[in-house]
C-alpha cells in the first residue's frame, strides 16, 4: 500500500475509493457485532453469499457486514439500501424470500418488519423507527456503513481527515484549546474535562509521555465501548493520534478486557492497516510526528478499569491502585506523564476537530456537552445501544427510545453507572441526564450502563448483587474496601435470607459512609452507592424483608414459596416433568402439588406452566405462612393416620 503523505493525498485516495466503487442496485447491510453473531448473523451472511452466488446476481447486490447497529433486541437484522428497509430477527430461510421479493421486486415483507410493542404500528424503514428517531447518533451512525476491518471504508466515510488537518494547520496548544472549548468531559464515568486533562499532561515535564485508551469496560450491563471498538476501531485510533500530537506522546496503549475477543481482533487489524498506510509509526502523514500504538489484553480483574490499576497491569504487575496524587498526568506509566481516556472520549475527538467546538457544544446542558451512548438493558422492550443528546430525560430514554417496560409491567427503578452508581425511582425520571444532576441524585453517569428494573425486581437483591460484585472484585489492598464491603454483603445476605434485624439499615448506612470516605480508589469510594440509593428510595422494601420477612417483588428465595393453585391447575404434567428435585406430585388432569420440603425454588415449574393456565404462583409474607401452616397440618394428620 502507498503511504499517505498529506491531506491532499488523503482526499485523492478518498475520491479514488468512492469512484472505484461499482454502483449496484441494492446494498444489504448486516449488523454483526458480538450480539449479532450470538443471535445468528453469521448464518445470515452465509445464506446471502450462497444465494447471491447461486442466482448470479453479484452485479445487483452489494453485501456489507458491519459492527453493531445498536438495536440488539432485533438481532440479527439487516438494512436494505437505498430505501433503508429494516428487517428484524432473521433466519437463514428468510434470505431467498428477501432477495426475490424485496431486493429484486421492491416488495416489503410484513412479517419481517419491526412493530412497535406499544402502539402495534409497523415501521418498514429504519430511520422512522421510534428507537432510532429520538437518538442523535454522532458516534454510532458510522456503524451502519463501515466494515470495521476495512480502512478504505473509514477513509471513504471521511476518516483521518481530522488528523490530517491537525497535522497541517494546528499547533498542539490549538488542539487542546479546541477540546477545552468543546466542553467534552470524560465518558468513562467521572466526567473530568478532557481538554484540561490533556493540558496538564502536556505541561508535565518528562523525557517520555504515554497515552492510554481505557477499554477495560468492566461495568456489568455496559457495552458501548465494545461496540465502538468492534464497529469503528479507526475512529478511536484517530482520536488517540490527535491526542498524542496535542500532548506530545510518542507511544500509546489500548487496554482491552479479555472478554471482548472481537474488539481485540478488529482493533489489532486496524492498527496494522494504519501502520501500512503511514497513519501510525514514523513521520505520520509526512510530518515530523511519530506515534506507536499497542494493544494490551486484560486478564479478568474489574479493578483494572481504575486508572492507576490499569497502568500497573500494563506494566505486568497485579492491578493494584495507588494513592493519587501524583496523578497519572504527572507520574503515570513507568513514572512518566500519562494521559488516560475512555474509548468513547477518544472517539469524540475527530468529530470535534472536523465540526468545530462551537458546533459540538451546542448540544447538551450547561456543563455536559455532546452526546452519550447508553446501553439500555434489563426489563425494557427495545434493548440496545442508544446515543442521545446530553440533557435528555431518563423518561424519554426509557419510554420513547426504549419503548417502555417489557410485558406491560410497572416501572420500578433505573440503575445507572454500574456498581458505582445507584438506582433511581419513578419520581426522578424527569431528571435531565447530565453528569451533575445524576451525581446529585446519588447515582453517577458512569460509563453508560442503564439497567431498567420492573416491579418484579427486588431492590434489596439488586443492592446485594452489586455489593457482592464489588466485594469480590475488591483488590484487597486497603482495609475499608476489603473488610467494609465484606461486612455489608454479610448484612445484606442475612436480610435477603429472612434473618435481618432491627438496626441493620442503620448499620449499612454507617459502614457505607466509612467505605466511601476511607477507601483508596474509586472502586471502594463508590461501592456503597447501590446500597445507599436503594435505602434512600426503596427503604420500605428493606423494612419488609427485615420486619415482615417478606420480599414484595417475590425474588428472594428464602422468603418465597412456589404454590400450585388447585382450582386453576389443569393437570398437564409439564411442571412435574420439569422439576429437577421431584418435588411435584400428581396425576394427569388432576391438580398437582408441590412438596415444600423438597422444593429448591429454582423456578423451572413456573417457566413451564402455560401462561394461559398460570396455576403456579409465588407467595411471600402472610400468605406464605398460611399455606405452609395448612400444608404442615395436612402432613401431620396424614402421619397421625
Amino acid at each position, binding site marked *: 500500500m502507498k503511504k499517505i503523505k498529506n491531506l491532499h493525498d488523503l482526499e485523492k485516495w478518498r475520491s479514488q475509493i468512492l469512484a472505484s466503487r461499482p454502483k449496484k442496485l441494492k446494498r444489504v447491510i448486516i449488523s454483526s457485532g*458480538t*450480539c449479532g*453473531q*450470538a*443471535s445468528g448473523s453469521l448464518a445470515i451472511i452465509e445464506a446471502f453469499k450462497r444465494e447471491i452466488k447461486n442466482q448470479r446476481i453479484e452485479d445487483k447486490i452489494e453485501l456489507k457486514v458491519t459492527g453493531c447497529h445498536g438495536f*440488539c*433486541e432485533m*438481532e440479527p437484522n439487516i438494512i436494505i439500501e437505498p430505501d433503508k428497509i429494516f428487517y428484524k430477527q432473521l433466519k437463514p430461510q428468510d434470505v431467498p424470500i428477501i432477495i426475490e421479493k424485496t431486493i429484486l421486486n421492491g416488495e416489503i415483507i410484513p412479517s419481517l418488519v419491526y412493530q412497535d410493542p406499544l402502539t402495534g404500528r409497523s415501521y418498514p424503514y429504519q430511520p422512522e423507527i421510534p428507537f432510532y428517531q429520538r437518538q442523535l447518533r454522532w458516534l454510532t451512525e458510522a456503524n451502519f456503513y463501515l466494515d470495521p476491518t476495512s480502512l478504505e471504508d473509514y477513509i471513504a466515510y471521511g476518516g483521518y481527515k481530522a488528523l490530517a488537518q491537525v497535522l497541517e494547520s494546528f499547533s498542539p496548544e490549538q488542539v487542546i484549546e479546541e477540546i477545552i472549548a468543546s466542553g467534552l468531559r470524560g465518558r468513562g464515568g467521572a466526567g473530568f474535562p478532557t481538554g484540561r486533562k490533556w493540558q496538564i499532561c502536556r505541561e508535565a515535564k518528562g523525557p517520555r509521555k504515554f497515552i492510554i485508551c481505557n477499554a477495560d*469496560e*468492566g*461495568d*456489568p*450491563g*455496559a*457495552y458501548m465501548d*465494545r461496540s465502538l471498538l468492534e464497529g469503528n476501531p479507526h475512529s478511536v485510533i484517530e482520536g488517540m493520534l490527535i491526542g498524542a500530537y496535542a500532548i506530545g506522546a510518542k507511544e500509546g496503549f489500548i487496554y482491552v478486557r*479479555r*472478554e*471482548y475477543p472481537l474488539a481485540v481482533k478488529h482493533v489489532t487489524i486496524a492498527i496494522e492497516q494504519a501502520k501500512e498506510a503511514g497513519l501510525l509509526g514514523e513521520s505520520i502523514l509526512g510530518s515530523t510526528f511519530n506515534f506507536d500504538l499497542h494493544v*494490551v*489484553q*486484560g*486478564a*479478568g*480483574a*474489574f479493578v483494572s478499569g481504575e486508572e492507576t490499576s490499569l497502568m500497573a*497491569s*500494563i*506494566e*505486568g*504487575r*497485579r*492491578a493494584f491502585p495507588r494513592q493519587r496524587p501524583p496523578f497519572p498526568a504527572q507520574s503515570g506509566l513507568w513514572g512518566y506523564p500519562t494521559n488516560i481516556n475512555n474509548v468513547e472520549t477518544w472517539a469524540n475527538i475527530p468529530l470535534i476537530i472536523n465540526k468545530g467546538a462551537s458546533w459540538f457544544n451546542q448540544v447538551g446542558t450547561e456543563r455536559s456537552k455532546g452526546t452519550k451512548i447508553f*446501553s439500555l*438493558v*434489563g*426489563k425494557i422492550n427495545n*434493548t*440496545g445501544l442508544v446515543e442521545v443528546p446530553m440533557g435528555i430525560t431518563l423518561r424519554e430514554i426509557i419510554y420513547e427510545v426504549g419503548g417502555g417496560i417489557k410485558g406491560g409491567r410497572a416501572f420500578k427503578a433505573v*440503575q445507572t453507572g*454500574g456498581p458505582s452508581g445507584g438506582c433511581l425511582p419513578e419520581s426522578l425520571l424527569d431528571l435531565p441526564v447530565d453528569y451533575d444532576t445524576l451525581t446529585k441524585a446519588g447515582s453517577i453517569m458512569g460509563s453508560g*450502563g442503564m*439497567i431498567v*428494573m420492573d416491579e418484579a*425486581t427486588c431492590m434489596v437483591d*439488586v443492592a446485594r*448483587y*452489586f455489593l457482592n*460484585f464489588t466485594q469480590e*472484585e475488591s*483488590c484487597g489492598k486497603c482495609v475499608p474496601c476489603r473488610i467494609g464491603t465484606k461486612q455489608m454483603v454479610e448484612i445484606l445476605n442475612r436480610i435477603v435470607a429472612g434473618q435481618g434485624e432491627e438496626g441493620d439499615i442503620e448499620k449499612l448506612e454507617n459502614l457505607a459512609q466509612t467505605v466511601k470516605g476511607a477507601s483508596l480508589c474509586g472502586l471502594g469510594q463508590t461501592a456503597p452507592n447501590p446500597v445507599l440509593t436503594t435505602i434512600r428510595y426503596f427503604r420500605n422494601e428493606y423494612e419488609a424483608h427485615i420486619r415482615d420477612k417478606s420480599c414484595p417483588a417475590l425474588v428472594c428465595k428464602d422468603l418465597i414459596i412456589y404454590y400450585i393453585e388447585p382450582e386453576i391447575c389443569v393437570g398437564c404434567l409439564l411442571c412435574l416433568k*420439569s422439576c*429437577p428435585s421431584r418435588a411435584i406430585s400428581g396425576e394427569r388432569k388432576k391438580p398437582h402439588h408441590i412438596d415444600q420440603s423438597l422444593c429448591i425454588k*429454582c*423456578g*423451572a415449574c413456573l*417457566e*413451564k406452566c402455560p401462561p394461559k393456565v398460570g396455576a403456579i404462583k409465588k407467595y411471600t409474607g402472610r400468605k406464605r405462612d398460611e399455606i405452609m401452616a395448612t400444608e404442615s397440618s395436612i402432613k401431620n394428620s396424614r402421619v397421625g393416620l
Partner: protein
Amino acid sequence: MSCLLIKKMASEDKEIFKGLELNQKSLIHLLHRIQAQYGYIPEEVVDDIAERLKITPSEIFGILTFYKAFALEPRGKHLVTICLGTACHVRGGRQIAEEAERRLGIKAGETTADRQFTLETVNCLGCCAIGPVVVVDGVYHSHVSIDQIEKILKKATEKGDEKN
C-alpha cells in the same frame, strides 16, 4: 507429564516467546499465550518463566492468583461460561447457573471428575440485550431458560464426540 510439558515448552520457546521483550512488561501477555496453548498454567513452568523474565516466582504466582483469566488446574474438555452481569441477573442468570451446577454436580469454578466440563461464571460478557447468556466452547446461547440447560450441555458433548 510435567517434565514433558517443560520440555515441550522449551522446544517451543521460539513460538511462545516470539516478539516479547524478556521482562516484567511481557509477563501477562506471555501467560495469556501459555494459557491459550495448554488450557492452564502448569505450576512447573513458573520457575522457568521467572528465570527468563528475571523476576521472582512469587511475583508470577501473585499475577496468577490475582487475575481470573489464569487457571492453575487443567480445564475440562468443554468450557461452560454463564454470564452473571446485571442484565442477565435481573433476567434470572443466577438460576441458570444453579441449574448448570446441579446438572454437572459441581460448583462454578470447578471441573467435573471425568474432566468433561469446566463451569465458570463471569461478571458480564457485554451481550446484555440477549441475556441470560451461556457460552459453551465459544458458542453463544441467548435468552437461555432453565429447562434448556440440559440440552445445551448434551449438545456440547455430542459435538465433541463428532470431532473425535
